[in-house]
């Protein structure tokens, strides 16, 4: 019955109570949403590469190397020479090596030159391999394999001709060498989805008539002529390496980092990821802090609402007292109301989160390549919700204590 009275009292003040609950719900949804995106982003980053022991590139920062080689974020400042690459490939510790050549683009998607070994060696989400949804991996010089997002966004099917542009977001397109979509990959949730993959030779072929980023005037070599050329690359952007034995990883890393002919950098993907987390952890903490503050603000709003309702509810509290309720029961009633508001707010916030995920999932995926899974609430989220309700109870103690004092002083008579 007390619970029923608390509900009735709340619904009698439906507007202010509704606003308070809405504020709590929105803040909870925001907090949980930020958490979802944060953990989702972390998980998808961590899932992007596995099975690769070392990533090698020209010397720069290890996070930078990781970002451009695996995540296609940012650009390489330097390449590593083909000689160095072949040197590495010949080392006894190296079980396999896959070259990566970046720098060109097709529409908004990056083009990556590599070998067919990439499709065998690249692993994501703890050991999963790439698989072809339609067509086949490249066979011809002008074949391109495209990621699922590339196909979906541009509406390409197997056999579609595509034109590759030199440089990123550049308008000088390599119109002379039309590529053809030979295969479309299954969706992976990794940057591969947004990549156009061609052979290393193809990257060279694109640049036959180019020097220093500009087309050589009047020169235009036909596709057939290019096919006759030996297209050995001068340089690659990076390389993925698998070692014969895990024990050799650190030795090989040191050897590469001390490679005398050229300044190179070898990184362990896991270690570089950790470094990345450290860099973003400040931003993460700030993000959690800000969204946490929003929840606190909503709860303080609730406290203000309860405070401002106290005077008009003096009569109500006097009635409870006259009927035999202890001042403590009056305090309890107010805390109960606050707990109800916070609980409804938290539940509504959770509902908003799922509604938001449901609507936002494909949008976030296409905009940021981040697939947020819709799962039942995690233990952590349950704790957050319980925490909000508890905090609501604690915060409401302040006005409830005031009501307690008031009802002690008023007794059962309110002079109005």
């Amino acid at each position, binding site marked *: 019955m007390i619970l029923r009275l608390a509900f009735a009292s709340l619904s009698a003040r439906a507007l202010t109570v509704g606003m308070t609950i809405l504020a709590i719900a929105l803040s909870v949804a925001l907090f949980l949403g930020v958490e979802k995106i944060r953990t989702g982003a972390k998980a998808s980053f961590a899932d992007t590469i596995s099975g690769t022991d070392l990533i090698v590139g020209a010397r720069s920062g290890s996070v930078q190397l990781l970002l451009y080689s695996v995540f296609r974020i940012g650009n390489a400042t330097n390449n590593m020479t083909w000689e160095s690459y072949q040197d590495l490939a010949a080392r006894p510790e190296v079980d396999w090596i896959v070259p990566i050549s970046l720098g060109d683009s097709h529409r908004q998607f990056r083009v990556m030159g590599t070998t067919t070994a990439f499709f065998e060696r690249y692993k994501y989400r703890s050991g999963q391999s790439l698989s072809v949804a339609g067509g086949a991996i490249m066979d011809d010089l002008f074949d391109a394999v495209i990621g699922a997002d590339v196909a979906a966004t541009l509406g390409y099917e197997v056999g579609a001709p595509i034109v590759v542009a030199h440089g990123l977001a550049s308008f000088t397109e390599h119109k002379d060498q039309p590529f053809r979509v030979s295969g479309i990959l299954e969706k992976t949730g990794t940057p591969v989805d947004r990549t156009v993959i061609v052979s290393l030779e193809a990257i060279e072929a694109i640049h036959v008539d180019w020097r220093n980023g500009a087309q050589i005037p009047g020169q235009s070599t036909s596709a057939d002529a290019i096919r006759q050329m030996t297209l050995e690359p001068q340089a690659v952007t990076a390389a993925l390496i698998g070692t014969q034995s895990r024990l050799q990883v650190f030795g090989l890393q040191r050897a590469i980092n001390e490679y005398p002919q050229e300044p190179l950098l070898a990184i362990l993907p896991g270690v570089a990821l950790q470094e990345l987390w450290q860099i973003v952890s400040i931003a993460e903490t700030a993000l959690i802090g800000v969204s946490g503050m929003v929840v606190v603000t909503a709860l303080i709003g609730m406290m203000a609402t309860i405070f401002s309702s106290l005077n008009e509810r003096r009569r109500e509290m006097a009635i409870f007292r*006259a009927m035999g309720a202890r001042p403590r029961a009056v305090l309890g009633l107010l805390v109960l109301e606050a707990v109800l508001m916070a609980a409804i707010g938290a539940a509504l916030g959770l509902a908003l989160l799922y509604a938001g995920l449901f609507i936002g999932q494909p949008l976030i995926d296409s905009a940021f390549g981040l697939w947020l899974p819709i799962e039942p609430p995690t233990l952590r989220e349950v704790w957050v919700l319980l925490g909000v309700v508890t905090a609501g109870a604690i915060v409401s103690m302040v006005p409830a204590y005031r009501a307690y004092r008031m009802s002690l002083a008023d007794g059962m008579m309110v002079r109005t």
Partner: protein
Amino acid sequence: MPDSDPIVLLKDVRYRWPGRKSFGLNIRHLELARAETVLLLGESGSGKSTLLSLICGTVAAGQGQVLLAGTDLASLTPGQRDRFRAEQIGLIFQQFNLLPFASVLDNIALPLQFAPTRRTRVDNAAQEARRLCIALGLPDDLLTARAGTLSVGQQQRVAAARALIGTPPLIVADEPTSSLDAETQGNFLELLFAQSRAHATSLLMVSHDARLADQFDRVIQMADVAQSLRDAA
């Protein structure tokens, strides 16, 4: 606690509102027998409501004894006192008696929530509330209505039903009819009397309206029992 004890007994009670020098209440002796109906008359500001608060134990006498059904209220802890009040007294105020957001039924049943013994005397709160409503001339389809939607006269009857439920030995009413018009007033009092007589309940009613006097067993003038010190400064 034998039932022969007077339901209310005040001996040499002095009371002063904290921080209020201008008003004080002295009561040498005030007694109310079981099943007696008493009208307490006094002008406004003479301390009638203060006296009721003393009897209900929501304020504690500075000196002297307040015995309710033979129990000295000062011997109880505040919590026990609240519970004791709920068990012994059905209260009706001048107005704004009810929780406006709650149903009539919940309002009537509310004191049972804090008075376990009174609750045991009621088998089925809803049925008893309905019976009281009908006895007090309220249509029983009102039970589920929100109390705030009732007329003032209806609200006072609901308050009476709430005071009567579980038959506490004492009904205390603080000017319960002053917000009602003359006809409703007479009607209300008759019903209240009938119910309290039926259960041999004592009734202590406060008013400043001397015309009600002949309906009560006894009339007490505030001026006779109490010395109200006013404007002592």
